[in-house]
């Protein structure tokens, strides 16, 4: 993230052109539930090095309403984190390069905003929680200070007001206010992640991006953190993008889910739709590969092969080399087929069932 400029005392009026965020926001959340908050349109991102070009995100589109949660599921290297960071524009550029597409947040295209405008968005209207709580906190600053920083910067309040608010946030995430003046190393992994949640939700963001927020934590602590996130989401009506490789976490936290493979969303639908009828062969493969807690199989069914080299992506379907339904049509560009109930899939097998065929490179309705 860029360095946050520190300001003491009241913010000057030169920011008068930007709306007074805090006053409006609470009312907005409640009124706007169900309205469109985020619209990612056909984004393409690559990483350029001097030898090669890594095509990380290849035409991703999805929408998110206020208060809803979308899960982005996929394996390592699928592009989920790149997508998330591109929304906040915190990809290192270079080597990352935003090739095309738009990201509309509350009606404004984030890609056309300047640095000053983006700084007012980050930590304020869109927040992010990263995977590794061990490294996300500043080790030489007390945790209370780190939470109050957001209030001071975005709301322009004084140190003492910011501290009071930070105290409240700590309590909200289940940490005793007594620990306000402690340092990150004095907290366990789960507690650190709570502090990070407090920081992320301090300014009541409309959108929280959670990038594998519990992967580094034990299962009982994971359960506590997921519950806390759900509780806070309910209270503050925050929309969320949950990035994970764990279908169990998706089942517990998400309304909709997109399956990411080689930089594309190859399947998208409500959690019920995707879990009950996984359409894309890759999604089916993922579900088959998971050892089940309830049933017993003799052998697991892995997906043979490995994800394609992102510097040498094949033409057409990116899953073709591993798919048992492969035929020559798979080498052509695959559109996103949309079923009557809204379930979407990027696979030729569903061409006849689809009600609405979207040409590749355009936005689904």
């Amino acid at each position, binding site marked *: 993230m860029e360095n946050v400029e520190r300001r003491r005392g009241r913010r000057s009026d030169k920011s008068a052109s930007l709306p007074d965020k805090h006053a409006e926001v609470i009312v907005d959340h409640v009124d706007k539930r169900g309205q469109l908050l985020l619209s990612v349109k056909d984004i393409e991102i690559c990483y350029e090095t001097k030898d090669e070009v890594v095509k990380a995100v290849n035409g991703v589109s999805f929408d998110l309403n206020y208060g809803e949660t979308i899960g982005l599921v996929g*394996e*390592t290297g699928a592009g989920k984190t790149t997508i998330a960071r591109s929304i906040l524009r915190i990809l290192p550029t270079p080597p990352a390069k935003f090739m095309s597409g738009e990201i509309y947040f509350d009606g404004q295209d984030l890609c056309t905003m300047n640095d000053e405008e983006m700084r007012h968005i980050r930590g304020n209207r869109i927040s992010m929680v990263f995977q590794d709580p061990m490294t996300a906190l500043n080790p030489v600053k007390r945790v209370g200070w780190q939470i109050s920083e957001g209030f001071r910067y975005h709301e322009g309040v004084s140190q003492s007001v910011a501290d009071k608010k930070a105290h409240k946030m700590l309590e909200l995430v289940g940490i005793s206010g007594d620990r306000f003046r402690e340092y990150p190393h004095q907290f*366990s*992994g*789960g*507690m650190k992640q709570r502090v990070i949640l407090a920081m992320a939700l301090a300014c009541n963001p409309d959108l929280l991006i959670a990038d594998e927020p519990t992967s580094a934590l*034990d*299962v*009982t*602590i*994971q*359960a506590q953190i*997921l*519950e806390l996130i759900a509780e806070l989401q309910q209270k503050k009506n925050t929309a969320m993008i949950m990035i994970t*490789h*764990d*279908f*169990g*976490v998706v*089942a*517990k936290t998400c309304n909709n889910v997109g399956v990411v493979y080689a930089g594309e969303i190859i399947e998208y639908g409500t*959690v*019920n739709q995707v*879990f*009950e009828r996984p359409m894309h062969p890759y999604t089916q*493969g*993922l*579900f*088959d*590969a*998971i*050892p*089940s*807690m*309830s049933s*017993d*199989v003799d*052998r*697991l*069914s*892995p*997906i*043979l092969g*490995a994800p394609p080299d992102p510097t040498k992506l094949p033409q057409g379907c990116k899953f073709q080399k591993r798919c048992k339904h492969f035929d020559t049509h798979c080498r052509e560009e695959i559109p996103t087929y949309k079923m009557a109930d809204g379930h979407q899939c990027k696979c030729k097998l569903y061409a006849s069932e689809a009600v609405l065929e979207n040409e590749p490179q355009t936005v689904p309705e």
Partner: protein
Amino acid sequence: MAVLLEVNHLKKYFSTPKGQLHAVDDVSFKIEEGTTMGVVGESGCGKSTLGRTLIHLLESTDGQIIYRGKDITKLDKRALGKMRHKMQIIFQDPNSSLDPRKTIESTIREPMKISKRYTKDEISKRVDEIMELVGIDRRMRRAYPHELDGGRRQRVGIARALAMSPEFIVCDEPVSALDVSIQAQILNLLQDLQEERKLTYLFVTHDMSVVRHLSDNICVMYLGQMTEISPSKEIFQTPLHPYTQILLSAIPSTDLNDQKARIVTKGEITSPINPKPGCRFAARCAYYRPECEAPQQLEELLPNHFVACCRAREINAISAPTLV
């Protein structure tokens, strides 16, 4: 089936400036030949330390490790050296457990070279055989770890563990660092190898679904103590120890029809340094009574199902065995 490994009151303590860290505290169990014993628990419960102590990577503080009738804790260095090849380990992180400056061939060859049991030709032949066995293309002999993906690296780790034709392998979270689809490949491989070579595994993991799939028996650890041991399927259907019940309820389920409420546990884990005697889970347990502060023993409540909890009978409504 014969018992391959018997562990009696095993202890492993570490000295820290703050006091003795009880990593493994009075643990006892048996593993039969050709079976898999799963060890589950969260971070810091001592499962990895247990695995390493069993194969003598770490020296135990007290207790017995009886391998095929011989107590290996009492063996001198030379005698132990003769036994070591039978007990191997597969590490969790395929990225850090392979020497980045050694080719695959070199990594697999190393244990055989050091043991001086094989001629050069034999070694070469064995490397070929093992690579084929674990599913690595022979053309990769001269490849370096950084040229391989996580799944292949882990296969190299497995190949290295097999190099000396061991009988017993400690699998320390062998698939945790891998993606779900690769995980399945590796688990199948481990299963096949066990069947073909009658291997015995100690499978250490925090992932309950993985351990269920591969294990015959499972034991649950909490802060160095063994809280429950049971046949694999049974522990999922009838978990008897309060901690096991909490652990199972915390796992997010992929079954949409099975979104049960989590059993709430308060607080965080207590310290393993200079712990008080008695059940270490007591501080967080909903069923705590003063009796829990006495040392708990593993008791067989159901056939082959052992629990270290003085209130387990009561909690699970199991009647005491009637005296005949």
